């Protein structure tokens, strides 16, 4: 085993152990989409009529429609939380430890990203199981396809979180990111309503929604759940991952990014 793989395995193992030990985090991440599914979907079932659009081949109920969006929500919150916790001192210490490893920095950050994505996928699977028990009809055939879709989506949103963690020096709280990143990404997407519905209300907003990388993640997952590949969504997701990863590496480049900030490290 090479040094790089040893480190990847160790980082994955650490993240998995922390995931198992921090049950509160797990339940919080699970309860959020479940509340949306059980309460929000019930309330809007009557209000939102849906036509047949790909990948659906028949009329679907609203709770079926929002499952991919809620899977995306799990990836989104987890990706942000995993990386933004780095901003806080508690986690910054372990990040500094990670960065003193003699392995290449891009590889260390990639390992970190893969590990947090793996945790997101576990939570997404738990959500799918509960949604199924709740009575949401999803084809079993899609389950094998949805795993890679979740992986690509998780990597993209995790990379976005890494960019933010490298740019934001100190956060007052999670609210700023909620307001300016998570809410716009989530609401300006196809997670809760199909884009044609949005276009009826505002073509401009619909355009913005279509450009939102989170929309691409949600559509990638939506098609994958029915065993179909949305090539365009996959392409945009991979492209966005590349862009965010490059920005994160720039942010964590010791000669740039953090060092440009006007101040010594947090523990000065």
């Amino acid at each position, binding site marked *: 085993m090479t040094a790089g793989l040893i480190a990847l395995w*160790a980082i994955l193992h650490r993240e998995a152990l922390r995931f198992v030990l921090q049950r509160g985090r797990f339940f919080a991440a699970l309860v959020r989409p479940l509340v949306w599914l059980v309460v929000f979907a019930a309330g809007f079932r009557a209000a939102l009529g849906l036509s047949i659009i790909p990948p659906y081949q028949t009329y679907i109920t609203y709770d079926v429609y929002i499952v991919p969006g809620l899977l995306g929500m799990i990836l989104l919150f987890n990706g942000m939380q995993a990386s933004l916790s780095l901003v806080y001192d508690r986690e910054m*210490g372990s990040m*500094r430890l990670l960065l003193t490893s*003699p392995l290449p920095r891009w590889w260390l950050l990639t390992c970190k990203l893969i590990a947090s994505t793996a945790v997101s996928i576990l939570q997404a699977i738990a959500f799918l199981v509960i949604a199924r028990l709740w009575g949401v009809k999803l084809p079993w055939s899609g389950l094998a396809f949805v795993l890679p879709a979740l992986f690509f989506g998780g990597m993209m949103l995790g990379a976005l979180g890494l960019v933010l963690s490298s740019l934001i020096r100190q956060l007052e709280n999670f609210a700023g990111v909620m307001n300016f990143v998570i809410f716009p990404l989530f609401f300006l997407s196809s997670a809760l309503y199909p884009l044609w519905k949005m276009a009826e209300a505002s073509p401009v907003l619909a355009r913005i929604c279509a450009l939102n990388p989170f929309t691409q993640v949600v559509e990638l997952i939506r098609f994958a759940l029915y065993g179909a590949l949305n090539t365009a969504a996959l392409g945009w997701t991979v492209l966005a991952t590349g862009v965010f990863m490059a920005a994160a590496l720039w942010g964590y480049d*010791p*000669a740039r990014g953090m060092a440009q900030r006007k101040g010594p*490290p947090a523990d000065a």
Partner: protein
Amino acid sequence: MTIKTAHQGGAGIAGIGLSVEQLSHAYGARQALDGVTFSVARGTFCALLGPNGAGKSTLFALLTRLYASRAGVIRVAGHDMAATPRAALARIGVVFQQPTLDLDLSVWRNLLYFAALHGIAGKDAARRSEAALQRLGMAQRAKERVRDLNGGHRRRLEIARALIHAPDVLLLDEPTVGLDAAARASITDHVHDLAASGLSVLWATHLTDEVRAKDQLVVLHQGRILADGVMDEVTAGRPLRDVFLTMTANPPTVAP
């Protein structure tokens, strides 16, 4: 007013663990480090003494490559930090001021995780971790959660962890912060022993009682080095505390 005394008895390049030449760093317009030059020979305990805000944390950020320096050269066991950063980092062990242990994981798990970050796994990692715990007399506590250890033990564990990959240089950034007097003395003793066994130790502090008469003393103030030499030669018989306060009390401002 820089005081220089001879302290590295004929040490050639081979005898130097850590060397810093003309290192400068600025945050915007504020100069945090200005032409810092010193070196630490193998087997030497070097105390980096400076008041808060002297530039110690910036220096540590540069030495651990959290930031890269634009002016100056850092060499670790002969490896240039700018040209061959990975080779240089591989020769450094670091104990940060902030705790970096995973509190909910076991002592053993923490050691293995760190070993893996340095590419060490399997039997080799187990052997090195076991040796580290033996040195600490903590072999029977390997399965305990770090959260259940007291502050002194946690710090000793971090020091042991920093030595798993057998580095040439050990950096410690105010490692005794938050510890009681007994733990502080014991850790200071422990690291002096480590230096005596051949490591180059750089120990940042603002507490004068942690420095011993035969230690190398580097005084950093407002980003510049005010003194570099054997402690009792720098102080010339006066108490270090007084010398330090006088040195860093730049008129008209009074340093803390």
